[in-house]
């Protein structure tokens, strides 16, 4: 798991950080000391290693019978695509799913944690989980980490009070919307939603619109790509359509394979080093004791 903003080389040994009173015992909660150090190092020109972000286009919309969530499947590490088919729609509860944009480790860890908490809550109450419960757990956690947990989420589900769709920002603010997009491809997807969304869409229309919005992100945003994942949640039923659309198939696979005749690679120099025998093998008569 890649850790956010942790540096490999420590240029300055901790001389300037600990000017504040150090004798107090740690009170608990997140310690921001290392964040100050990181900022100081950036100002001196030392850059952190790149970490796996999910680039991403994630969307959600409310339709006649519930909510539909959609996501692309490309995960990037700087300019490199590190996962061509990752899963960005995370399970929170049987009736609640969450799309995650931002740092992949953060979205996965935070959704797993809230999913586990909701399971315990379901046992204690004997009731189906509500979307606002998931929302409140997520936003409280993100707020307490002051935006350092880089997770931007689209949370959707159907509970006893009806269908709900929310967006959650890394600093902990939330919106409640009939249609929402997040991630680097959010503008491309929002353009599609703004022109084509209307209330009371049917399931087929909703899925088509979600796919169109994600495809808009896939083709117009570098941080998004590969396939479209869709999740349809209705009262008492959910459908996780993994790779519902695959508009970027691999077309260059040669069935014959590749042959490389000898002499294709030019040999520049040849150096042969005979290995010296350093081990003396003595014919022993005593077997090693077990």
């Amino acid at each position, binding site marked *: 798991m890649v850790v956010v903003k942790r540096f490999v080389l420590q240029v300055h040994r901790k001389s300037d950080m600990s000017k504040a009173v150090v004798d107090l015992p740690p009170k608990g909660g997140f310690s921001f000391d290392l964040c100050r150090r990181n900022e100081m190092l950036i100002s001196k020109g030392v850059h952190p290693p790149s970490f796996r972000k999910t680039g991403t286009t994630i969307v959600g919309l409310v339709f006649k019978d519930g909510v539909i969530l959609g996501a692309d499947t490309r995960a990037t590490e700087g300019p490199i695509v590190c996962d061509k088919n990752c899963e960005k729609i995370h399970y929170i509860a049987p009736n609640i799913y969450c799309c995650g944009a931002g740092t992949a480790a953060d979205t996965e860890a935070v959704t797993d944690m809230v999913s586990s908490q909701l399971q*315990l809550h379901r*046992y*204690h109450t004997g009731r189906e989980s509500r979307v606002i419960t998931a929302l409140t757990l997520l936003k409280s956690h993100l707020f307490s980490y002051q935006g350092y947990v880089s997770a931007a989420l689209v949370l959707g589900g159907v509970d006893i009070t009806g269908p709900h769709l929310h967006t959650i920002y890394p600093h902990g603010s939330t919106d409640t919307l009939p249609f929402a997009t997040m991630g680097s491809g959010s503008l491309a997807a929002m353009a599609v939603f703004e022109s084509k969304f209307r209330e009371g869409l049917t399931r087929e229309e909703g899925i088509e619109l979600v796919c169109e919005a994600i495809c808009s992100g896939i083709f117009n945003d570098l941080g998004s790509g590969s396939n479209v994942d869709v999740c349809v949640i209705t009262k008492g039923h959910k459908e996780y359509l993994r790779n519902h659309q695959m508009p970027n198939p691999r077309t260059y696979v040669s069935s014959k394979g590749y042959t490389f005749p000898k002499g294709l690679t030019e040999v520049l120099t040849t150096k042969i080093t005979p290995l010296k025998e350093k081990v003396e093998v003595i014919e022993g008569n005593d077997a090693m004791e077990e």
Partner: protein
Amino acid sequence: MGDSQYSFSLTTFSPSGKLVQIEYALMAVGSGQTSLGIKAANGVVIATEKKLPSILVDEASVQKIQPLTTNIGVVYSGMGPDFRVLVRKSRKQAQQYFRLYKEQIPVTQLVRETAAVMQEFTQSGGVRPFGVSLLVAGFDDDGPQLYQVDPSGSYFSWKASAMGKNVSNAKTFLEKRYTDDMELDDAVHTAILTLKEGFEGQISGKNIEIGIIGTDRNFRVLTPAEIDDYLAEVE
């Protein structure tokens, strides 16, 4: 844990080498309502009496058999409030296991961890042992399993067991009736008959509770209507 003045353990050895507090805890269990469990070839059933202190008590609000995970359930004999605490702790432990290993906790592991909690309370400062014995029923990759956990923290795997008031009669009855190739339905009937043995008054779906788990690995508590159906079959 507890005030520093009470940081000594309340559970101490007697000259004969017994832990008297645990013996007393077992007595508390022995005076609790009867509960029993039977492991069948294709599932496990656990059952208990649900005698309420008055007819005015809303019997639907009392649930003595509780799920710990989707495939593990538990019933008790003894003190209800102590049971609630253990159920909460066990559920949390099961979730923590899942968070760590992304695997559903095996029955033996959950039993072990629950037993460790119960043992802790026999060796810590300022606390008393739990006044419950648990019967844990589960179905995982090792098949159907039934475990009994005592206030001391010891646990045993049983083919069939009983706890509480009528334990000796119930166990004798189970010894006679138990067969290794029992099916889950037969086990439910046997459980009902065993409860009937020591039952005071008219047995019905409202004053007993039954929990079952089969090859579907889904632990569930039977509704009073379902219990009445089984009772009708047994008559």
